[in-house]
């Protein structure tokens, strides 16, 4: 996995990916980053410098809610787990449909023949 093959995230898509990730259940920052990285086969590299500001922005909009909880049975370590709110779920649906329209439109421009 050479560095050159990694793709920087498009502006605005990180929010959507975070929301999507949290659809599976609560997760802390590190888990969210790893999850995005792994499910994209390490293609998408989450810049930690933008992950945390994004998390707090989403929290501020009440789309996600953060809470300190212990890592699991027996563990004494605590993480700030983020969970999707009802408002966040609604937002994810909106973002998803917007994204679908956007990628479709871009695809039609880039490869018109294939589409036709």
């Amino acid at each position, binding site marked *: 996995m050479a560095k050159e093959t990694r793709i920087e995230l498009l502006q605005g898509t990180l929010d959507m990916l975070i929301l999507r990730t949290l659809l599976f259940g609560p997760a802390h*920052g590190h888990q969210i980053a790893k999850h995005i990285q792994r499910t994209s086969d390490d293609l998408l590299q989450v810049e930690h410098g933008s992950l945390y500001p994004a998390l*707090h922005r989403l929290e501020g909009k009440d789309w996600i809610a953060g809470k300190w909880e212990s890592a699991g049975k027996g563990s004494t370590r605590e993480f700030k787990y983020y969970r999707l709110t009802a408002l966040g779920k609604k937002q994810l649906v909106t973002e998803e449909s917007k994204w679908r329209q956007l990628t479709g439109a871009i695809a039609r421009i880039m490869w018109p023949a294939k589409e036709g």
Partner: protein
Amino acid sequence: MFWRRKQREQDLERELRSHLEEEAAEQRESGVPEDEAKYVARRALGNVGLIAEDVREVWGWMWLERVLQDLRYGLRALRKDIAFAALSVFALALGIGATTVIFSVIDNVLLEPFPYRDSQRLTKFYIRDLAHPDQTGRADYTMAEYRAFKEQNRVFDDIIATANFDVLYTAAAGAKQFRAYQTTANTFDFIGVAPLLGRAMIADDGRPDAPPVAVMSYRAWQQEFGGDPGIIGRSLTLNGRPTTLIAIMPPRFALYNGDFWLPLTTETPDTRVSTMGRLKHGLRLQAARTDLELIARRLATVYPNEYPSNFSVTAVSLVDRVVRRFRPLLYALMAAVGMLLLIACSNVANLLLARATAREHEIAVRASLGASRSRLIVQLLIESFLLALFGCAAGCLLAYAGIRGIVAVMPRDLIPNESVIVLNPRVLLFALGMAVVTTLLCGLAPALHAVGRNLHDRIKTVGKGTASGSGHRGLRTAFVVAQVALSIVLLVGAGLLMRSLIALQSVDLGFSPDHVVATAIPFAPGRYDTAEQKRIFFRAVLQKVAALPGVVAVSEASALPPFGGPRSEVTVPGVAHAQGLRASMQLCSEDYFRTLGIRLLRGRLLTETDIDSARKVIVVNQALASRFFGDADPIGRSIKFDAFDKAPESPRDAYFEVVGVVADVRNNGLQSPPQPEAFLPFTISGALGRGILVRTATEPNSMLSSIRREIWAVDPNVAPSMGTTLVTALEQESYSQPRFALIILGTFASIGLLLAAIGIFSVMAYSVSLRTHEIGIRMALGAQRAGLLKMVLAKGFMMIAAGIVIGELASFGLTRLLRNQIWGVSSYDPAVLGGVVAVLVLVGLAACIVPARRATHVDPMMAVRYE
């Protein structure tokens, strides 16, 4: 939000640290050595400080975004419920407007009444005779004393001296008298007010050989010269002397209420001046007192005649001195208006509570969608703040009108001439501050209440309609009780003021003020100085005025009733402990008693011969006779007035024989019992102010100008005052402040009552609407309309009664604020306390009637089906 910044900072740091640890642990698991793992983790995360910085920025924007969002949301919510918004804004506007009006009076009258530089530090000082601690003391000094104070003090930046120097301005049109002063040449620099036109007085103008110059007030400039700017540099004849006019002062300048100020050039060490110093920055009055007393003690050894044997020096600020009569009233009004604001706030709080109940569903939904508690509280507070802002804007408009109203009824002589009551930036800032305060006062409780209950409860009750809001009911009742209690306090205050004014107006003066005209006749220095000159002048005037048709009697007088003349210490042979006895001296002519309608009790009155030959005989009042002589016969006794020994043109060491005793009349204001007073032939002395009193058969105001014409017929170069009727003078002097207090407090009490009535009405209407279902069932089960009416009214009555009891108890304590304004009536006056209760019960029950009637018109079928 922002107040939890610290907590959030710690959270963020903890969050980033846990991320680092997790990453390091992962690296270790994949085989990276221990110390390298940490390094790799740190590199993967990047610059922690920078991330934290970015997150903080997000917080900042978030906050602003939320506020904007909340503002938009709040505006939308208010627009949806326009009746609620209008009522709340109306109540807040009344509260904030009234508070702003009173604050602007306090600001302009108490805090910044003078346009002078550092006016709060201007200080006057008095030599106070400790034998007469009730008196302010001597404030006039000889020039020699002034020099000593000026040179030796270490507490003042500078001291000025001012001498009365009324001027007679002679122009082609006729002579006119102006109030004027000679002042030391440093005065204008001291005062720090630049002239509107021309140049200020400078040190050179004060030299004895300097050409005569004068500074004129804006008022005189407008009235006499029509505001002609070309007047500067012209020569005016003042007291017969050509004087160059060097400056016109701005409108808001009237030092000692003068119209002309001339340099003090003609003084001798004996010239009497009043002084004023500017306290050095940071010094207290006490320091001035100590320092000045040191100087005064030295002066007392040089001029023993000027100083009582036992004295102290008091120093008071000019502001204090001028507004001391008015200040307690203003503070009392501030307290009253504070209560009014509380009534308005609790009214709005009640409306907000009702609204919060109606919006429970919305709030529950927002909470379940993930809005945090604090977010909801801020949202609700922002809505209240919007209301308060609109209320503040409307309140400022009301205040703008209210200030005009209050100025119109304000007794002018109680406030400095130069204080201008306007909405200045400080006042507007105050109003804005009030908006914030009211937001918290009326918004916090409902907001906390609305989001206080847990979500589960709320979702359960939402949509059921009947039980919802029951938790608010106690709070709402408490608010109404508070409103009733506060209105009671205001009404009791207004009632006591009304009773005081009535008591004041029904004081038996002892003489009849109707149909009496008073005209003061001030003389320019150098004219009519001696007793003989005054005798000739007044004889002619009295004869001419007496000959006017419609004149019943006319007399010379040296003081305007109900105030006696200047008080003097007396020496009474044969009376032990005569020391400390004082009497006022009224210089008058033989018809004085007939003019005022004063009854003779014993002996005889003054005769024309007594007057014309300036015989040393006096008539005394009953108070003097019994105070000085007890039961003994005062006729034939003699009294010496010590004041004459020092006064100019007066008999030295003169004993006067008592020839008659007259009934007491009020001579120390309306509120004090009559003081010992002696009536002396005016021809005795050339000192003291003079004027004439005229009793007319016709409407007295119509006589004013013909009286002046007769005076001018005797000498066109004297300048009699416009003249006034005693009734008008009494009104200005004695009734205007109590009336002012009554009008203002009465207005506040009425507004308070109106708001409380609205409060009662809204709570009753609301509780009836909540109980529609219950009432329907009761009716279905056979309850009678009358019974239901009684049930609802009883609930309203309980609320009102609770408020009345609390309010009456509170008013016992709070009317103490008014104790300086209340006169002739007890603070526990049963008529006032009872009357107020009656008013509130009536108004309160009237406010209950409509909701109660609505309860009886509930359709049982509809009400039951509603469920």
